[in-house]
């Protein structure tokens, strides 16, 4: 017999007790931390991770239960290290994420390079639980810690000529074997957004997840999260943000233009040329549970559909 669970609360999304208790401890620790910015030093090797005093954002999906952290930490596409999603955890440990600075340049009034600590001091960190949907048809639910990209871009004062935003990952061949050996893609990794997408409040820069600093394999110390787009848009370890007049050529789009578009909006009706995007396997769901029906814009249609009015999403995939 097939027992169908209620659509809104699939059994797969219910967190197991151990994870729940761990989270309780973490939240308690966070509440115990004095209010104000506590700059994490966890990126330094062997440093004890600091817990953050972060509030849950209104932009968080309250109905979603995060995927167990161990799964999220050990299933990452980080091609600079390896093409294997489970090996990146170990390989990324040599990565140098501290100190870190970010360059903001291009069509802005105030271009500059800033230490990550200084950037964080100006931002209020918050937790946002988003569903993360990979183009490979799997998904997970992650409580990111970060802030809206718009809050940072506004400080740089974009000019009216800034129509696109280009993001670039660090070039660190000494710790990234596939950058060193020029494997698979053209490095460094580049991603891009239209300016209205970049300024959308849902678009965030994450510095942590599960109330802690980002693990290296998950894109430490600073990554993009665009929840209505396929995961490859959410570029990791960002060192440069450029505001541009013209659309940047993004890495996957350049590598296989017929397969990975610039927009890469989650859309069950537009298949990848080789596989369907109609459904997704949720990490953490057990055997004999059905795949999940993928939602248009990954379920964020209410907030973002207006960005794509009058656009043929089949053409601009």
């Amino acid at each position, binding site marked *: 017999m097939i027992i169908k669970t209620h659509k809104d609360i699939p059994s797969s999304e219910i967190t197991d007790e151990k994870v729940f208790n761990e989270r309780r401890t973490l939240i308690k620790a966070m509440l115990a931390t004095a209010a104000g910015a506590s700059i994490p030093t966890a990126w330094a090797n062997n440093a004890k991770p600091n817990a953050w005093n972060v509030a849950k954002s209104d932009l968080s999906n309250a109905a979603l239960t995060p995927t167990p952290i161990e799964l999220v930490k050990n299933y990452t596409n980080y091609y600079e290290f390896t093409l294997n999603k489970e090996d990146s955890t170990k390989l990324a440990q040599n990565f140098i994420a501290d100190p870190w600075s970010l360059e903001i340049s291009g069509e802005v009034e105030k271009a500059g390079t800033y230490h990550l600590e200084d950037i964080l001091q100006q931002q209020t960190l918050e937790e946002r639980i988003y569903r993360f949907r990979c183009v490979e048809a799997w998904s997970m639910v992650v409580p990111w810690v970060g802030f809206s990209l718009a809050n940072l871009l506004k400080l740089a004062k974009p000019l009216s000529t800034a129509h696109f935003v280009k993001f670039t990952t660090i070039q660190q061949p000494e710790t990234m074997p596939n950058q060193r050996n020029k494997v698979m893609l053209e490095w460094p990794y580049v991603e891009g957004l239209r300016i209205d997408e970049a300024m959308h409040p849902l678009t965030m820069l994450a510095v942590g997840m599960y109330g802690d600093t980002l693990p290296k394999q998950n894109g430490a110390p600073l990554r993009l999260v665009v929840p209505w787009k396929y995961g490859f848009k959410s570029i990791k370890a960002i060192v440069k943000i450029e505001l541009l007049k013209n659309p940047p050529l993004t890495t996957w789009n350049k590598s296989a233009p017929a397969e990975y578009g610039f927009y890469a909006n989650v859309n069950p009706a537009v298949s990848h*040329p080789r596989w369907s995007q109609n459904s997704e396997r949720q990490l953490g769901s057990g055997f004999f549970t059905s795949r999940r029906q993928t939602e248009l814009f990954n379920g964020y249609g209410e907030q973002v559909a207006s960005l794509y009015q009058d656009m043929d999403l089949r053409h601009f995939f």
Partner: protein
Amino acid sequence: MNFQIKNPKLVTLAACLIPLLWLFFDIAFDNLGSNPIQALHIRLGDWSLRFLCVTLAITPIQTMTKWRGMADYRQMFGLYSFFYATLHLLTYLAIDNNFEWSLIGTDIIESPYIWFGVVAYWVVFALAITSPKWVMKRMGKSWKKLHRLIYIASMAAVIHYFWQLKGNLAEPLLYLIIIFFLLGFRVLAGLTSRQLNKMMIPKGHE
């Protein structure tokens, strides 16, 4: 003590089940990683493809070693390829999709990589049901023609494998090289020697 294997066929038959036991072990001890369903899927598909390669390798080995009587093993390995392919298919239908036919239907229609898997499966299925000796006898010359489709199945299986991947193509490429090598051997041997064809006939049918 006599350590000689008394019944090598029976031992081989049992040994071919080790991958399945290993898989059960990994399921029991939660050893399949963050995406266990996909891991299960890949493992079963991998073993089906491996048995297909071993099946293809029997004839070249027989030719090189001049050892007759391997046709029974070829049949056994072929059937194991079918066995693991069937488990792979059942995993997809039951464990991955819980028999949600609307999801399955859309997935198959929209995923060209699955079409190749379907082709490979039907060929292997046809070869499996025509594998008993009495069927072979009854089919006569058309049996051999039908069973040459194993090359179609193996190529389709490799395309099925690498077309679903975004990045890492090393493993499917390895299978592709093996299959090309085995196919190349057959073509070369077919051109240079008609002996081979004689040796393809199983023991007791000469």
